[in-house]
Every structure is written in C-alpha cells, then in structure tokens.
C-alpha cells in the first residue's frame, strides 16, 4: 500500500477510487463489452433457435435436450478430455525433464534455453503444417525413424486411434515456456538444502522427491491450471490437422480430432446455428469454472508455499 493515499488526488479533487477507476477504464470497458455482456448474451441465445439471418426464437431447454442426443457433442467432449487428461500431465512432465536437464552450470545454458523456447515463437499455423509433414505416414521423418528401429509406423493422420497422439507429440515440441518457468523455479531452490541432503547421503531421486518437487509445486500448480484451461480451448492445431482442403474444418478421421472448441466453432460459423453453439459454449463455461475450482481447491493438499 502506498503510504500517502490521495495526496495529489485531493489537490485536483479526485479521490483515489476515481483515479483507480479512470486508469482501469480501458479494461473495464473491454470486460463489460467483450466478456460480461457476451456471457450473459450467450446464456440467452442458448435458449433460442437462432440462425443469424432470423431473429432468435425462444425454445426453452430444447438446445440442451438436443445436446444429450448428440453423438458429436460427446465425441468432442471425449477428445478434449483425452487431450487434457493425457496431454497436460505429459507436457508438464516433459517440460520438467527438459528443465532438469538444462539446469547445469554449463556456459551454454542460455543457448540451450533459447533453443527449447524457440518453437513457441513459430506461428502456430506454420508449426502445425510442419508437424503434419513430419508425421506424414509415408514420407515423414518420424515414421522413417520409427521404421528404422523396426517399430510399428502409425498412420498419424488417417488412423483415428493415432490422430490425437500425433497432436500430443507436436505438443511436446511446444513446452518451451513451461520449461523456462520450471528452469527459473529450479534455480530458486536454495543450494543449502541439497548440500544438507548430500551430507545425509541422499541419492538423486530422494533429493528430487523431498526437496525439488515440493519446492517447485507452486509452479506446477500454476502451469497445471494454465495447461488445463488451454487444453479446454484446444482449437487451432486440431483444426489444421483435420483440414483437408481450403479452410473447411472437419473433424478428422471418424471425428477423432473434433475438439470441443471446434464443435462450437462449426455450429456457429459453418452451420450458423448460433443458439445451439451458445448452449455448447455455456456448457464449456461451466466446465471451465468447475475445473478451475477443483484444481485450486485441491491445491492446498500438495502445494507448499515458502514460509507456510
């Protein structure tokens, strides 16, 4: 807190609150127009039949009732859950492994760190097309390497079983920012803790488990929340993986790439069924709220903050 509230403000007759609101005004306007109003409006639209060209017509709970009959709704839920439950922990684990590997006193560390981060600045569209090429069943390098050691070469973009693992592999290439954050966190762990443990003859694993893991747990929580939220919005990579020609988004083989965000998009902008799309959006909103609450609620059990 500033020690002198409102010294200047009083001269000009503005209370600190007025000053605070004035400075925050851009965001407040944006919040009202682009977030609060849309949430309320989509709640209303979700109870209507609304084709963009006609005015919305109230139909009560029909959209929600239709959802329960809609196989593609459940399919998109499943696909999104798959990417979240497998993809997020996998990404965190790989980011942590990278950070541990890079956390050496090497002079080259800034270089290593830059290389690991570099893929995240590649435009996501370019990155996705690149991975479609790398994962090309016939000509791609990934299958060549896999085949070279005699393993099964999946049809990454044709076989519904392998399309999502293909996205997961691409996701590993994009863990740069999480790895950087982990690396920064690893450097914050006091060296004296490790020295004390070494005197007690602790091995690598017990040092990791008893010192490192608890010390970086706030970062893990934060990245988990960010990762889950990001995963719920999963869109671009799956959309582009499923793309056959021009800008028509499909769902991939047997809808195996149909993410929830894509299904909302398809209903809204391809089928122009704004009412149904709004119902889908509202379900997503509720799921996001619930998951965030659960993660934050569980956090106290395993996250250790310094000085607690």
């Amino acid at each position, binding site marked *: 807190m500033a020690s002198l509230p409102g010294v200047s403000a009083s001269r000009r007759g503005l209370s600190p609150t007025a000053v*605070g609101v004035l400075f925050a005004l851009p965001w407040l306007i944006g919040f009202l127009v682009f977030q609060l109003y849309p949430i309320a409006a989509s709640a209303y639209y979700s109870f209507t039949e609304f084709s963009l060209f006609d005015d919305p017509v109230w139909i009560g709970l029909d959209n929600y009732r239709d959802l329960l009959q809609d196989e593609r709704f459940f399919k998109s839920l499943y696909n999104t859950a798959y990417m979240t439950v497998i993809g997020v922990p996998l990404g965190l684990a790989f980011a942590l492994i990278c950070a541990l590997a890079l956390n050496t006193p090497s002079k080259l560390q800034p270089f290593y760190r830059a290389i690991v981060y570099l893929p995240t600045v590649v435009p996501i569209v370019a990155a996705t097309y690149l991975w479609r090429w790398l994962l090309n069943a016939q000509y791609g390098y990934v299958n060549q390497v896999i085949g070279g050691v005699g393993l099964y070469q999946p049809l990454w973009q044709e076989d519904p079983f392998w399309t999502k693992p293909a996205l997961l592999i691409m996701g590993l290439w994009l863990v740069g920012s999480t790895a950087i954050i982990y690396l920064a966190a690893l450097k914050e762990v006091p060296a004296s803790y490790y020295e004390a443990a070494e005197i007690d003859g602790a091995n*690598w694993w017990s040092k990791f488990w008893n010192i490192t893991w608890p010390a970086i747990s706030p970062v893990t929580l934060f990245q988990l929340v960010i990762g889950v939220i990001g995963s719920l919005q999963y869109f671009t990579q799956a959309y582009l993986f499923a793309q*056959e020609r021009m800008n028509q988004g499909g769902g991939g083989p047997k809808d195996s790439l149909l993410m929830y*965000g894509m299904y*909302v998009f398809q209903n809204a*902008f391809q089928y122009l069924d704004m009412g149904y799309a709004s119902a889908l959006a509202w379900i997503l909103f509720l799921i996001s709220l619930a998951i*965030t609450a659960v993660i934050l609620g569980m956090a106290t059990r395993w996250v250790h903050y310094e000085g607690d």
Partner: protein
Amino acid sequence: MATTIPSPPAPRTGRSTRKLIAMAIRELAPVLITILFLFPFIVMISTSFKSPDETFSIPPRIWSDHWILDNYHRVFEVMPFWRYVGNTLLLAILAVIGTLFSCPLVAYSLSKVPWKLRNPLFLLIISTMMLPPQVTMIPVYLLWNETPLMGTWWPLIIPNFLGSAFSIFLLRQFFRGIPNDLLDAARLDGASEARIYWGIVLPLARPALATVGLFAFVGTWTDFLNPLIYLSDPERYTLSIGLYNFFSEHGVEWGPLMAACVIFSIPLVVVFIIAQRHFIEGISLTGLK
C-alpha cells in the same frame, strides 16, 4: 565445464564410475534435447529447398544434392504473399500500440493507485484468463455484425486497446517492484497521477513494456482463430489463414508450403533472437507468482 574425462581424486572405483556416468548424462542431456528441438526446424528449411522428387523420396534425406529456389517462387504465385505479409504486419503493429496504450494504465491502477477495490479487480482480471474464447466469441461476433465495421480489420484491432489480462498481469508484477517512496515524493511535490505515470513509472518500466509489446506482436502475428472468424475478404487475409492455399484437391504442396512457413517464421525468430532476454524474463516473471 570440462568435457575431458576428470581424474577423480579418491580412487574408489565403484563410486567414481557412477559419478562418471552421472556426469556424462548431465553433459549429454542438454545436447540431446537441443538436437530434438532443432530437428523440426532443419526439416522445415531443408524441405523448402528441395525439388518435388527429393521431397517425396524414401527414405527422406536432410541434405539435398541440389538446393533450389522453386518453392519460394511458387509461394508468390499461389497467393498474394507480400499483401498477406503486409496485412499481418499492420495488425501486429497496431496490436502492439493498443497493448502499450491500455495495459500499463490498468496495471498502474492495480499496483500504484491506493484504492480499495484494486485487489478484487486484480482477481477478476486474472480469472478472465480462464475464460475460453469460445464462450464469448458468438455474442462478440454478433455485436460486430451489428456495426458497419464487420468485414474490416477493426474487430481484430479494437480489443487490443482495451487491455489483455495476461499483459496487465505481467506489467502489474513489474510495477510492484517500483518503490512507492519515489511516487510519494513526486506526489508531495504536487505531481498529478498522470504525470507520475507518464514521467516516472513508464520510463522505469521500459523493459517490461518491451516484453509485453513483444508478446502482443508474436500473439497477433500467429493468431489464427480471430482472422478465421472475421476475415472473409481474401484481400484482407493474414498469413495464418492465407497458407491454406497450398491445400488443393490434388493434395498438399509440401515444398512451397514449407517455404511459406519459413518466411512466415523468420520475422519472429529474428525478433526472438534480438530480444531473447525480454522473452525469457517475461516468461519467468509470469511463472513465479
């Protein structure tokens, strides 16, 4: 660190071999990881210089016998590539301007103006980061649809001038590190909040502003969803949605597509190399509470 084999001072063989292995892992792991992360870049670049015959060779070869520029020529045939570059650049620069106008103002309110509701407001801003864009995109689209601005770039530009939660968060973290004594002294001298903001806080926050500006640039340069929703006129396309031109009934033109991806990525890679410190510090700043 030394890459030569160290001579262990204590000749207890069992332990020293284990130490040696541990050291080898420690030295080799970063190199291995670097190669893994670099490999896709190498493929992208090498494919972009290959003839179709070499592109579709089995087994694929990284090193081409004859490097050709045909794919790069093709990029400019298939679509108005420079126009798309210009469009993307324009939007990215306007996003930077909008972000640097709005986000520091809000961050200042949250960190340096002593008003009661600033912490609840901060929580509210943070919690909007959890909101998937799919939840709001339909009513927002319908709103723009009511205005004559639909079909122009404005729906992609204006939101930047109203702040983004992530940038506000990052700047607030930075502003909190600026000593209040400095601002209080200025207040005692009769400086207005606007002058303190403009004359003291902003100049001190230059590194953080650079970071936020860079993220805005990268974010807009790579954005796909918003251009997909709002740009229907091919004249106004950005690179992100222009690249689909390489997909046709006859399949994908991988060579030219990779060439386009190289050109598309280069500006960001260059920006990153020049301003690496800002990226890494910004990322670390947001990650550690």
